[in-house]
């Protein structure tokens, strides 16, 4: 039956539309289609999808050669994530208002380095649902007690009242009771940190 089909009206299944061309779904033509009736004829029985002759390995379509360090590599490097946060490029002015640290700050007996993002490590810590505000100066090196005295003096002058501070010598930070972050930043910039 199958041989008759194939020899006499091999393209009959193209007339009946799409169903005739689908493998094993040609019941309306009274014959079961096998892979070989559609494509090349082989005598293997296919138990596996990848053994089907319809499934072919796609050839590499593009020829390429490997090149080390071409001039275009700079454009790729531009897209790669940064290994480290880049150091500051010295400029005349900084339009963002960022203030660079000064060299002479390193001669003081106390020191506060910038964070890795080149910002001052002075923060406002809000706790108790906003009821308690504490300004925190972190990463202090050197004479922390002297720095504490100077901060107190500065705040006393600016706000005309006594302001409580707390020094944590081991943790290298000073806490100032109240929100004095802007004033403390001004003081730190004036010292060159």
């Amino acid at each position, binding site marked *: 039956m199958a041989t008759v089909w194939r020899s006499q009206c091999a393209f009959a299944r193209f007339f009946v539309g799409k169903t005739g061309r689908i493998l094993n779904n040609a019941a309306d033509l009274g014959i079961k289609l096998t892979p070989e009736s559609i494509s090349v004829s082989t005598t293997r029985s296919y138990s596996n999808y990848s053994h089907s002759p319809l499934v072919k390995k796609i050839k590499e379509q593009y020829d390429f050669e490997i090149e080390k360090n071409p001039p275009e590599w700079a454009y790729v490097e531009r897209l790669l994530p940064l290994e480290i*946060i880049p150091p500051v490029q010295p400029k005349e002015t900084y339009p963002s208002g960022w203030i660079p640290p000064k060299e002479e700050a390193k001669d003081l007996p106390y020191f506060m380095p910038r964070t*890795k993002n080149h910002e001052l490590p002075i923060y406002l810590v809000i706790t108790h649902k906003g009821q308690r505000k504490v300004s925190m100066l972190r990463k202090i090196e050197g004479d922390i007690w002297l720095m504490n005295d100077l901060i107190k003096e500065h705040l006393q002058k600016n706000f005309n009242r006594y302001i409580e501070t707390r020094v944590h010598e081991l943790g290298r930070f000073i806490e100032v009771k109240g929100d004095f972050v802007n004033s403390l930043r001004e003081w730190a910039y004036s010292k060159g940190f």
Partner: protein
Amino acid sequence: MSFSLINAIRKLNISTVSQIRLISSGSTDVSNINSHSNSDLNVTQKEWKFPPQFTKPREVWIENLDSIDEKKLGLFELHPLVYAVLPRIDIIHRNVIWQRKFRWVSWAHTKTRAEVHGGGRKPWPQKGLGRARHGSIRSPLWRGGGIVHGPRSGKTHFFMLPFHLRIHGLTSTLSAKFAQDDLHVVRNLELPTEDPEYLAELIEKRNWGPSVLIVDDNDYAPRNITVATENLPHVNIIPFYGLNVYSMLKHDTLIITQTAAERIEEKILQHLHSNTMPQQAKFKLNQV
């Protein structure tokens, strides 16, 4: 921490003794150092990628392992952000707890009343005997009955310590070891013999603690030192990427090769100066 405290006290005693010795034989020591400086004492000025700002870099002698008597081969600088931070004992403690816990799976197990054998039948009628009412002899009230809320096996205690606490733990421990004179830098790990007695004598002579952790920058240590340390259970070698707080506290003295000291410093400084958001993100199981 009791380890390091005892160690510190012990080191204090030893240092006073050595000072006395120095005073008594000061002239010879000085001449020794001079003779070395004449021959091959090299003082290297380091090219800092992240120059130390306020705290000065720590200077350390480069020592040798190829003779039992200590020779100073050179002077070396260590970055203060890695080797001279103020040691936070609480962070060191949290690291130790983490290292003990994250690999701990508790296999303690108890059976519930459903799992204890038997107990399906009502032991005696509900009424008429004058006894307490019971439905099963494996009820938790009974001797030999099931356990309520007991440990169930396969309980993991895994968690990850936040990334910067792990970094800070390493720097704290390295700094504490360095401040207590328990960190020594050597040029390389070449030994003249593979005899373990040589190494034991060297450790004894130089007042290195009974237990010694040797850190190299390489997975492959030289043959002599691997053979010598094989039967010394208290002398261990690890590569620099295996350095951890627990092992550093477990051993009294830390011996680091010069290249390993540089690699540790480089890696930690890179983490301290880069964007660490990927490392700080929530730990996912598929990232192992």
